[in-house]
C-alpha cells in the first residue's frame, strides 16, 4: 500500500524517531535558521533589558534639572571637536534644561515599549476579533463592517478629546495618575487603529471559510469557536503579523503625536516619541537628541518586523519544509 508517486520528502523515508518532538521545537528550529530574526530577537531582548534594568545601572533621575549643565554634547563629540562641552557624567549629553539624555532614553524606552506592545496587542486582538467575526458569521458582517466604516470616518482628535473627557478622571482615581493615563493612552491608540486590520482579516476569512478543510471540521462537529481558533486564525497569521509590526511602530509614533496635542503623558514623562518631537526644533545644533530616540524607535520596529518575518516563516509548515 505505498504510493507510487510519493514526493521526495516521503520517499526519503525519514527515520521514524526524529518526528517525535513537539511542533514548537520545529518552529524554533526554523526560527533559528532565520539570521535576521535571531539577531532582531536578541536586539529586542537587549533593548527591553536596557529599558527595564537601565534605572539600576544608570542612576540619574531623568527629570533632574541642572540648567547650569545644559546642552552638554555626547562624549563622542570630543573626537572631532575638542572644544565641545562634554562630560563623562552625561555620556549622551543633556538637553536644554540639563536633563540627562541617557536616563531619558531609558525611562522613555520603558514607557514607549510598554505603550507600543500593549496598544499593538490590544489593537491586534480587536482587529482580529472583529475581522474574524465579520468574516465568519454572515449575520454579523454587515453591522460590524458598517461599524468599522464609522470608526474609520470618525475624526480622531475629537474622539480622543471625548475619551479623555469621559474616562481620565475615573481612571486617575482608580489607578493613579500614571497608570491611569497609561491605560487611557493604550486604549485610545488601540481603538483608533484596528480598522484596517479588521478589514484585511475579514477578507481573508471570507475566502478561507469556503475552503474544504473548514467544511471538514464542521463535519467532524467542531464548534465555530474552535474552527476559528484552530483552522481560521493560523491561516490569517501572515497579514496579522504585518499589521502587528506596523501597529507597534504606529503606536509608538501615535503616542508622541498625542503628547504633541496635549493628550498624552504629562510633560515630565519622557517617551521616545516625545524626546524625538521635542528635539526637532534643535535638530541642526544637537543632532544626537533626534538620532538616539529615532534610532531606538526605528531599530525596535525593524527588530519586531524581522521577528515577525521569522515567526511567519517558522509557523508556516510549507516554508518550514524547504
Amino acid at each position, binding site marked *: 500500500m505505498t504510493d507510487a508517486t510519493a514526493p521526495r520528502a516521503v520517499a526519503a523515508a525519514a527515520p521514524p524517531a526524529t518526528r517525535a518532538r513537539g511542533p514548537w521545537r520545529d518552529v524554533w528550529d526554523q526560527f533559528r535558521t532565520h539570521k535576521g530574526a535571531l539577531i532582531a530577537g536578541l536586539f529586542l531582548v537587549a533593548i527591553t533589558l536596557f529599558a527595564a534594568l537601565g534605572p539600576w545601572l544608570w542612576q540619574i533621575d531623568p*527629570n*533632574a*534639572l541642572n*540648567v547650569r549643565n*545644559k*546642552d552638554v554634547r555626547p562624549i563622542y563629540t570630543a573626537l572631532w571637536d575638542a572644544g565641545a562641552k562634554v562630560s563623562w557624567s552625561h555620556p549622551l549629553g543633556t538637553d*536644554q*534644561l540639563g*536633563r540627562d539624555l541617557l536616563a531619558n532614553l531609558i525611562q522613555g524606552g520603558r514607557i514607549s515599549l510598554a505603550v507600543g506592545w500593549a496598544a499593538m496587542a490590544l489593537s491586534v486582538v480587536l482587529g482580529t476579533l472583529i475581522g474574524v467575526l465579520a468574516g465568519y458569521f454572515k449575520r454579523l458582517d454587515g453591522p460590524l463592517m458598517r461599524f468599522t466604516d464609522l470608526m474609520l470616518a470618525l475624526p480622531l482628535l475629537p474622539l480622543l*478629546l471625548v475619551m479623555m*473627557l469621559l474616562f481620565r*478622571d475615573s481612571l*486617575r*482615581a482608580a489607578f493613579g*495618575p500614571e497608570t491611569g493615563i497609561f491605560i487611557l493612552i493604550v486604549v485610545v491608540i488601540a481603538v483608533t487603529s484596528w480598522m484596517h486590520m479588521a478589514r484585511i482579516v475579514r477578507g481573508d476569512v471570507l475566502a478561507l471559510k469556503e475552503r474544504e478543510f473548514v467544511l471538514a471540521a464542521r463535519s467532524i462537529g467542531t464548534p465555530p469557536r474552535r474552527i476559528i481558533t484552530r483552522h481560521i486564525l493560523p491561516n490569517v497569521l501572515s497579514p496579522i503579523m504585518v499589521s502587528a509590526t506596523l501597529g507597534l511602530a504606529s503606536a509608538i509614533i501615535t503616542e508622541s503625536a498625542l503628547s*504633541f*496635542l*496635549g*493628550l498624552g503623558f*504629562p*510633560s*515630565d514623562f519622557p517617551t521616545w516619541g516625545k524626546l524625538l518631537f*521635542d528635539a*526637532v*526644533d*534643535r535638530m*541642526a*545644533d544637537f543632532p544626537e537628541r533626534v538620532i538616539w530616540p529615532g534610532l531606538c524607535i526605528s531599530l525596535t520596529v525593524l527588530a519586531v518586523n524581522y521577528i515577525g518575518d521569522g515567526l511567519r516563516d517558522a509557523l508556516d509548515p510549507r516554508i518550514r519544509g524547504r
Partner: protein
Amino acid sequence: MKLRTTLMGAAGVLAMATAAMAERGSDGNVNILYWQAVSIMNPYLSGGTKDIEAASLVIEPLARFDAGGVLVPFLAEDIPTVQNGGVSEDLTTITWKLKPGLVWSDGTAVTSADVVFTWQYCTAEGGGCAQGAKFTGVTNVEAVDELTVRVTFDGPTPYPYGPFVGGQSPVIQAAQFADCLGPRAPECTQANTYPIGTGPFTVTNFVPDDVVTLAANPNYRDPAKPAFATVTFKGGGDALAAGRAVLETGEFDYAWNLQLAPDVIEGMAAAGKGTVVAAFGTNVERIEMNLTNPSPDLPEGERATVKHPHPILTDARVREALSIAINRDIIDEVGYGPAGQPTCNLVPAPALYASDNTACLTQDLDRANALLDEAGWVRGADGIREKDGMRLSLLYQTSTNAVRQDVQALVKADWEAIGVETELRNVSAGVFFGGDPASPDTFQRFYADVQMYTNNFEGNDPQAYLAAYACDKIPSPESGWQGENINRICDPVYEAMIAELAAAREPEVRGEIAKRMNDWLTKDNNIIVPLIYRGRVSAHANTLGGVQLNSFDSELWNIADWYRID
C-alpha cells in the same frame, strides 16, 4: 498735545526717510508669514490677533497706539482730551474730528456716518460682535456734522478711548456693510473678506486660512505710501517654520510671533538673513493659585466653588513660599530670553501703572522653607511635606506648548526643593482656553491647584483688567463657568479698591490705586504669582526697513512706512 507732537515728529522723520527714496508701489512685493492663518478680514467677527492684524492693513481706527503705548491719531485729526475740549468736563462724552478729505479705497468719502454705522454694526442684536466690550457703556454715537462724531457714555468715563481706537475697533464702510447688520453679519462673505478700507492696502485675493494678497490702495491719503505695491500674507505652519523662512532661508520678509525658546531663535538668527525684534506690551505669564478646592472627591457642582476653600492654598504663607521658591531668572533664560524679563507685577506697563514691586525676583529657598515650617507643613520620610495626614501635593496645569512644559519642569524642580510634590498636566490650548462649560479642562473651571498662562489688557488702561477680581465675576456652575475671576478672589478690601479706581479721574491717582491693587494681588497675597513679563518677538528680513514692533496695537500698524533696503 505734548505726546502728539513728539509722535508726529517721529513719524515725520520716518516719512522723510522713506519718501526720499520711494514712491507708492516702487518696492514691489513684501511677504508676510503668520503661522496662524487669517480666517476673516473683519475684526468685529473675530477677535483673533492674526485676523485683527491682517485687517489692520485695510481698515483703520480713528486712533492707534504706537510702539510705546501712546495714542496716535489715524483717521482722526487729533486725540481728544479734556484739555483740548474733545472730552467733556463731566467725562461723559468724547468728540472726534475726522481728517478732512479722507476717501475709501473705492473713492467715496469717509464721513461721520461711517463711524456711527460702525457702532450700530457692532451693537446690533444677534450679530455676535467680538469687540462688543469696546462699546460697553456707550449710550449713543452721533454724527455732529459730516466730519465730527460724538460718543456718549452712560456715566463719567475717565478713560474714553475704547470705541474706534486700536486695531480691534476700526471704522468700516457703511455702504458696504449696510445689509450685514445683526444675524446677517456672517452671511456677508464678500464684505467680510474684501472690506473696503482707508488703509494702505486693499485685498485682491482672499483664501481663508491660507493666504491673502493685497495691493497698494490707490486712494491712500499719503500719495507717497505705501512703498510696497503688493503684500502676500501667508499663514499656516508653526512658529519654528515661520522663523526659519525669514531668518534662515530668506523666503519671507516678516514672521509674526516667534514663540520659541531663546536658544532656538538665536540659532536661526545666526544665519544672518534677518533680524529678531521684540516689543513689550502688557503680557504677563503667571501662575494662578486656586482659592477653592478642586478635589475630584467633591460632588460635581461643588468642586472648585467658593463653598469649599482650598485646603492648602488658602494659607497665604504657603502661597508666598511657592512664589519665592521659583527661580524666575532661569525660567527667563531657558524659556524667553530677550522676549521676556522676570517680573513680580500683574500690571507691568505703562509706567504710570507699573508697581516697583520686586520682592519675588530673588529666589529664597530658606525663607520659603521657613514659611512652610511656620505654616505647619513638616517634611515626611520621602522629603514631601505633610500636615494632618495630608501631603503637600499640587496639580499644576497649563496649556500644551513646548516652552510652558519646560517652565513646568523648572517650577516643579524648585517646588520639590522645598518639599512640595507637583503633578504636571498639560491641556491642549483649544480646550484649555476654550471656555466650553461642559469641559473639565478649561482654565475657568480650574480643576487644578495651580495653573499657568498669559493674560494682558488691551490699550493702556488696566481698570477693567484689575476689576476682574471681583466676587461677582467668579466662574461657577451657576454662571456656566464663565467669569474672569479665575482665582475665585472675594475680598471686601479689594472690592473697595475696585470702586475707588472706577471713580478716580486724575491719572496719577489712578496709577497709585492700580499699583495698590496690583500689589495686593501679587506681593501681599501671592494669589497671582507673576513669572515673566512677556514681549512679542517677531523677525524681519534684513532687507525690510521701517518695522517698528508694537505690542499695544497691531504689529503691522505702520506698514505704510515699510520699505525695501537694497
